[in-house]
């Protein structure tokens, strides 16, 4: 038993130390402040700024959108709004969506793109990530909303507030730690996912200027660099992985501290 927990923990330690060790040696100022230039994939200069910004442009709007949709769904799943059978069915479909591989979301968006005649674009990258994040965020918000005591809501109703006001002003505040944790969990998943944006956001060396530009992101950049046959180029993948891992780890740390902080507004 101790051996198996040791395997689990050490695999994480190995992953983090490899990325930090290899990434820190190949990371330089120009890697994070320049976009990829023509010879970047052959071992010449340039950096991954386009990928870092691309990742943010993809994941932040996607998380925002997914949050808006998720909070609507999670609020609607309360007893106050929906019938027991309805919420059971919606929860079941969310559970199923949660397990769908991200590549399937990517291909699904590809079918829409083909139908509409739109090429690889930032817009559809955002849509694919939004779909991917909705079940993750909704489940987490739903769990924390379930914990909100019914008496609290009744108190709000008895003062004459509407259902919507109760949901946004009382339930949302009470469930804040769970909502924050869910959103940041979704953001972490979205920023690290490559399979869903491989076909939808495409790849580019420039910083996207409109919603219909194709764009690079950190995970897809790592994937593309990795496929180059030159070891000197592959070193750059570690730099990108280092940046990605730092982002993901800091999201996880922020999530912990924020949800601790926001607990002080929760009425126990």
């Amino acid at each position, binding site marked *: 038993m101790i051996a198996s927990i040791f395997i689990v923990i050490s695999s994480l330690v190995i992953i983090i130390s490899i990325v930090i060790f290899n990434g820190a040696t190949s990371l330089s100022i120009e890697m994070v402040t320049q976009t990829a230039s023509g010879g970047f994939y052959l071992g010449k200069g340039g950096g991954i700024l386009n990928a870092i910004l691309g990742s943010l442009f993809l994941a932040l709007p996607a998380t925002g959108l997914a949050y808006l949709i998720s909070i609507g769904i999670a609020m609607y799943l309360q007893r106050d709004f929906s019938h027991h059978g309805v919420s059971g069915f919606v929860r079941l479909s969310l559970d199923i969506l949660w397990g769908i591989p991200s590549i399937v979301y990517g291909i699904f968006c590809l079918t829409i793109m083909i139908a509409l005649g739109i090429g690889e674009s930032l817009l559809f990258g955002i849509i694919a990530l939004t779909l991917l994040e909705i079940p993750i965020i909704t489940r987490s918000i739903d769990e924390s909303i379930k914990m909100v005591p019914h008496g609290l809501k009744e108190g709000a109703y008895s003062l004459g507030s509407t259902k919507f006001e109760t949901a946004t002003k009382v339930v949302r505040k009470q469930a804040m730690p769970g909502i924050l944790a869910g959103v940041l969990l979704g953001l972490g998943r979205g920023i690290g996912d490559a399979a869903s944006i491989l076909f939808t956001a495409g790849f580019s060396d420039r910083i996207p200027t409109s919603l219909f530009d194709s764009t690079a992101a950190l995970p897809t950049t790592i994937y593309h660099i990795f496929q180059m046959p030159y070891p000197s180029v592959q070193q750059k993948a570690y730099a990108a992985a280092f940046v*990605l891992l730092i982002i993901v780890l800091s999201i996880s740390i922020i999530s912990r501290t924020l949800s601790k902080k926001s607990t002080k507004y929760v009425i126990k």
Partner: protein
Amino acid sequence: MDKRKFRDIICTKLMLIVTIFVSILFFLIFFSLLNGSSLILGEYPITDLLFSSVWKPRGGEFGLFAVIIGTLIVTGFSLLIAVPISLLSAVYIVEYAPKRIRRMVRPFIDVLAGVPSVVYGLCAYIVLVPLVRDFIAPYFGVTASAGTCVFTASLTLSVMVFPIIISLSVESFSAVPYELKEASLSVGATKWETVRKVIFRASAPGILSAILLGFGRAFGETIAVNMVIGNQAVIPSSIFNQGQTLASLIASSYHELMSIPRLESALMFVALVLFIVVLIFNLLGVLILRRTKRRWSF
């Protein structure tokens, strides 16, 4: 009508709309993938697609059998490695570990769940590939292994599945009522006997659903597998040979997508197969978990 009530009605309707959207989303995905693959399904019979093992898009052959076999081997092998290790870890966390260690381990597992798959792939490529090529494969008498093989992919996947199985089974182990354990210990069973005969048995459905959800994750993993499996759409003759999985096949066809006719439709068919299999297994997992919750509501 006053403004507050009006806003209440509008927003409630909006919430209803997004809820409906999400509940029909998987029908939407299913039918659009089906529609996308209708082109290939119209030209080749479905048995040909599933049971012919020649995948040569350039020659117009789209047999998925070798890839399906590869997927099953990789997924099965990764679960074979991951399940015992994760279950033992989960038991240790719930039953044996001192409180201090328990509190330390939890964040580690959360972080492990959050590591992007492309990072897993990269690390597997730098650590596992040379390890398998230079040590593990020769140890089993295979000298010609390239290191990028089915076995490496399974190892990578098993690490990715750890956090899912561990966190779900920790949940179901902690739900076993304390009286059951006490009763077992009081009749003289040792701690391990209690774990084996009471805790494992009482939370068997929970474990099963954890494994099924882990299966879904391993089955659909794309990028990490793609980086270490070697990407040859042939039936691997040993686990140290190169292979291919369904999800990874989609990603590796990325560069050829526009140049080969019907490939797009074939990939949508692959996605449809993935979708259906994962759907079935997740549905099973979720339903089992729900049943348990009803049965064990002490």
